[in-house]
């Protein structure tokens, strides 16, 4: 059973500027939620707080009923195995080769596996993305897109039930993009709880079941895709229009977008 992720009243500031203020949001079990907002609106911070990587100054983050920051260490460790996190900049470990990057989560959480097993599993997972030839390479030898793909493999190697992804399609080439989209689809089919931050309107349009709209560290609204899209709030509409481009304004044919012909102008922008 995939978990529910809840953020209550989360606030975070850095060097005196507010990054998140009283953000409350619930990512329900087995749902796919996309977090949208302008650059610097706190999307990445929200994701990191939700994944237990960024300690908020106030508020709580719960996975089902477990507070991700205050739980006992053993419980938190067990929780880590259930959460996959994809970093915006991949964050591969530079001092390990690709195979070891993928294998480390297994090494930490699957103590029953031998080193050979871990290598086998890692290799087969890489093969799914066609990355197995790069197994011995160091991260700096890979292109950004390849790094992203390896990072995704690493995030998913433990088959997590809760997956958080920060810009999964950023700087990814066409071939890998479709592989990643397939992988996300597969996760959805497995009823994983998926949270993604993206500027990619195509992906949002195709995958998003729920939307979280953020502005300047605040969660303006969240809810099912259609409800949010139909929000009368001018501010929400403005952001959606900005992020999702024509989808809101012109009710474009979705099929056209699915076929990959749609504009992808904002895809490379950092959040």
């Amino acid at each position, binding site marked *: 059973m995939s978990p529910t992720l809840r953020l209550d009243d989360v606030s975070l500031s850095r060097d005196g500027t507010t990054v998140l203020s009283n953000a409350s949001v619930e990512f329900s079990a087995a749902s796919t939620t996309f977090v949208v907002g302008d650059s610097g609106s706190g999307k990445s911070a929200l994701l*990191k707080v939700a*994944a*237990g*990587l960024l300690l908020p100054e106030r508020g709580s983050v719960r996975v089902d009923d477990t507070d991700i920051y205050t739980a006992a260490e053993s419980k*938190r*460790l067990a929780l*880590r*195995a259930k*959460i996959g*996190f994809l*970093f*915006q*900049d991949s*964050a*591969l*470990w*530079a001092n390990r080769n690709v195979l070891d990057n993928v294998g*480390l*989560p297994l*090494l*930490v*959480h699957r*103590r029953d596996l031998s080193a050979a097993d871990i290598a086998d599993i890692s290799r087969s997972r890489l093969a799914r993305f066609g990355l197995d030839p790069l197994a011995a390479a160091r991260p700096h030898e890979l292109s950004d897109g390849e790094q992203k793909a390896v990072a995704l493999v*690493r*995030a998913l190697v433990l088959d997590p039930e809760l997956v958080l992804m920060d810009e999964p399609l950023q700087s990814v080439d066409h071939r890998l993009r479709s592989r990643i989209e397939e992988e996300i689809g597969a996760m959805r089919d497995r009823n994983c709880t998926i949270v993604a931050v993206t500027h990619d309107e195509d992906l949002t349009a195709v995958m998003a079941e729920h939307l979280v709209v953020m502005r300047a560290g605040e969660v303006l609204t969240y809810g099912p895709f259609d409800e949010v899209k139909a929000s009368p709030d001018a501010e929400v509409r403005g952001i959606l229009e900005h992020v999702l481009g024509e989808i809101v304004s012109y009710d474009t044919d979705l099929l056209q977008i699915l076929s990959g012909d749609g504009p992808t102008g904002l895809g490379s922008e950092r959040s």
Partner: protein
Amino acid sequence: MAVAALERIGRDLRARVRKLFYATGFFLQVLRHTPGVARQPHVSLKGIVLQILFTGYEAFGIVALVSLSIGAIIIIQGIALLPRFGQGELVYSILIIVIVRELGPILTAFIITARSGTAIATELGSMVVSHEVEAYVAVGVNPISYLVVPRFIGVTVSVVVLTIYFSIFGLFGSYLVTQLIEPIPLRDYTQNLLSALQLVDIVSTFFKSIVFGIVISVVATFEGFAVERSSTEIPQRVIRAVSRGFVLCFVANAIITLIYYL
């Protein structure tokens, strides 16, 4: 005006105290995770071995060179100066005090700070910037036990080992120099040195080198982790790792020497 100044001082002080507590907490975390390091599956002994290789073995040459020349200098100066006071035998005590007890640990610490303290701070700083540290946290690896403890152990062992080499080379080097100036039998030389060498010298040196190793590694890793987002912070933190490392080593040295004489 005065109130504002007071307020600023107060705020500054509070920030400092908080930082101090934070640093202490960091150190305690390191200590807490050190004993269990062998039990962590992902922390191989290899990491520690490599750390010793980079920090200890690769600094061996420079440490040997420095200690040989210092030993030589002491002998030359001592032989030139001490007999004038009728204290020629004192040169052995001076060798022991300077090389083994005082300069050995502190110079080794300096060399290691300059070589490895900077390297560690840079490495960890860039890991923070590229989110690698967060990636470790995300997969359930404690960065303290995985990144800090091997460096902590490796650097501390390296400083201890290099201090031993420093002492041996310093004393041996000075012997070679005496051979050039005024040959004395090796047996007499070692006999005199060994009589001048007190157990407390060895203990104090050992203790100092452990403390210096701890100071260097903890300061370097702490400053490395103190990098937050930008790679421009890295050089600043590296400088701080070196200067703080030096200052703390000096303070620790003074305290230990003081304790020794109490």
